């Protein structure tokens, strides 16, 4: 295209010369044909300046994931400038904050009349070290667990709520346990359940279970267990641990049982 323009200008120049010579010829006898015009001297048009990326940097060059880096660039003689990695078209001079989640190479591409240029810069991204694990809980078990694991039932005779010798020993150990549990957990409470075997009437057994729970509570309080942490409930014969009709099962059901409160 450019060459065509030049050829055209030379032809025009030649034609003008020819017309002026012809005009002269009308007034004078025809001279010898002029020498052919010297070939027109075609001047080279000025060359556009080259596209030049003066600088393209990332500051800092390496970051931790979640941090940002600043891209900074300076470009000369370019008409179209863009950065990949979704940064897009940018001005000739500028900065842009980027938040790469992994190490990323950014390429700046510049295009102008004087050509193209590109330059890349890489931002190194490192994963931060995992946060330290939460502090391990103290190795103590919950009051409910301790109670379930260590507390023992106190057993009673038929239609009785007296604390037997074996029940005294059991409840004495239970009292120590309760004191330890309460010391470790100031909000912990315990329900003392009173139970009966299936032989008495449901109605009387409700009273008897209440009596057994109360008797066990009184015993524990005498041993220094704070009474405001102990509640009682009678289940009568509503919640047996076994249902066989023999003395062994009856005995297992005639009990005071410690369970965690609400």
């Amino acid at each position, binding site marked *: 295209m450019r060459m065509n323009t030049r050829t055209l200008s030379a032809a025009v120049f030649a034609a003008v010369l020819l017309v002026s010579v012809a005009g002269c010829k009308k007034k004078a006898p025809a001279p010898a044909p002029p020498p052919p015009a010297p070939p027109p001297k075609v001047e080279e048009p000025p060359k556009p300046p080259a596209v030049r990326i003066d600088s393209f940097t990332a500051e800092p060059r390496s970051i931790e994931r979640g941090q940002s880096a600043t891209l900074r660039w300076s470009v000369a003689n370019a008409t179209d400038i863009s950065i990949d990695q979704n940064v897009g078209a940018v001005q000739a001079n500028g900065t842009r904050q980027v938040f790469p989640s992994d190490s990323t190479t950014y390429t700046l591409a510049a295009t102008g009349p004087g050509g193209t240029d590109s330059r890349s810069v890489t931002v190194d991204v490192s994963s931060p070290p995992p946060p330290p694990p939460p502090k391990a809980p103290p190795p103590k078990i919950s009051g409910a667990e301790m109670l379930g694991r260590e507390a023992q039932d106190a057993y009673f005779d038929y239609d009785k709520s007296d604390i037997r010798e074996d029940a005294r020993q059991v409840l004495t150990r239970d009292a120590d346990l309760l004191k330890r549990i309460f010391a470790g957990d100031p909000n912990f409470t315990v329900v003392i359940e009173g139970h009966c075997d299936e032989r008495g*009437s449901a109605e*009387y057994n409700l*009273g008897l279970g*209440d009596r057994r729970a109360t008797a066990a509570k009184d015993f524990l309080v005498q041993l220094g267990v704070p009474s405001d942490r102990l509640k009682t409930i009678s289940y009568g014969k509503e919640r047996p641990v076994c249902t066989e009709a023999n003395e062994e099962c009856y005995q297992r059901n005639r009990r005071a049982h410690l369970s965690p409160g609400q």
Partner: protein
Amino acid sequence: MKTKLTAVCAVAVALFSAGALLLTGQEIRGTITQGERPSIAVPDFRGSGDAQRVMNTFNETLWNELANSGVLSMRAKSMYPVDVPQQPSDFRPPTTSPPLRRGEAPRTVRNGPWLTDWSGPPVSAAYLAFGYTAVQGGRLVLFGWLYNVAQPDPASAQVIGKLYFGSVDNEGAKNVAREFAADILRQFGAQSLAGTKIYFVSDRTGYKEIWSMDYDGSNQQQLTNYKSTSSMPAVSPDGSLFAFTTYAQGNPKIMVYSAQTRKRLPFYNPVSSMVATPEFTADGHILFSAAIDRWAQICIANGDGSQMRRISNVHAIEVSPRVNPKTGRDILFISGRSGGQQLWRMAMEGTDLERLTSGEGDVANPSWNPNGQTIAFAWTRGYEPGNFNIFIMDIAKREPIQLTQNSGRNENPWWAPDGNHLVFSSKRGSTTQIYTMLADGTNVQRLTTQGNNTQPVWAKGIN
């Protein structure tokens, strides 16, 4: 009552006045067992037209109502004559003809149904119930008569002649039969149980809830739905309220309900680890057992729980207060105050304490006969702990009569409103079920089948 009886039939007075006025354990038993019950013939009634379809239900209901009352001796149908009267005009007096041969007695010529068909052998009944049904104006009408067949003629024999109306279906037939039966029973000083309700505890849903049913086991309905343990029902004397003990809110507490609306009514439980075994008094108070000062004690409060007052004051377990329905002045209750679980009685003020059982075994579940004189309870006397049997006792005579034996664990006897029946629970297999019986231990009928059913309370219906 006595005047009415006299007017109605002299026989009934002779047989019943003593018993009706002074029903005691022995006499109730005697009334039922010693064959002194008036005899009655109840032939099958027939219905005209559409009424015929429901007559099986009618006849079955009428027979059962009368037979189960315990006050009548039913004459077997197989003895009845072929020509059964359906209305008074069917009776035709026999005529006398001269003897065929001289010297013989004059002949009696039978002209149709007559009173002596029923009073004489083989029926030998004192009374005859007869009649028929028809559909009239879209309603079932029963024309019912009760005759005293010992009388010389139909006019003087009539005790009842009455019309009863119901719907033309089995329900209507059942209703008119029950009404007719109730009128008949009233002539003998007995009360029909139709309309009465039995409250009880059933675990058939997986939780112990309060239920109710009709006196014959029909119409079983769940009244509570706490999905907890709710038990020990009580019903107010007028049938309008029921109460029970429940773990629905933690420790055992009493709740009071309207029987009509089945809605909870306010009742303020005392602060106690245990409030249980409610009982209504006729004057609107509620008796119960509450743990006070470390022991379950008998208490009384207003119907809403206010003004609670302790009645007993002893280091012993005391439960199951039951107020005398006749006097409203004395309470039966179970107490451990003499050791064991025994039956005691005291005045409403907590005075006049006396033990009613011997001290042997364990006693539970006292219940008053409506006469205020006879009581029922469960007792292990003579058996190992837990082997309860049903006993009744005249409270003046103090002679306990054992009604059940060798038939599992029998508990929770409760007198029917008629004073002749008892409902109770019995474990005769792997489950506990509810039964009724006459107060002599006969005519035992099972009412429940699903799950375990316990703690029946026989109450007046509300309708």
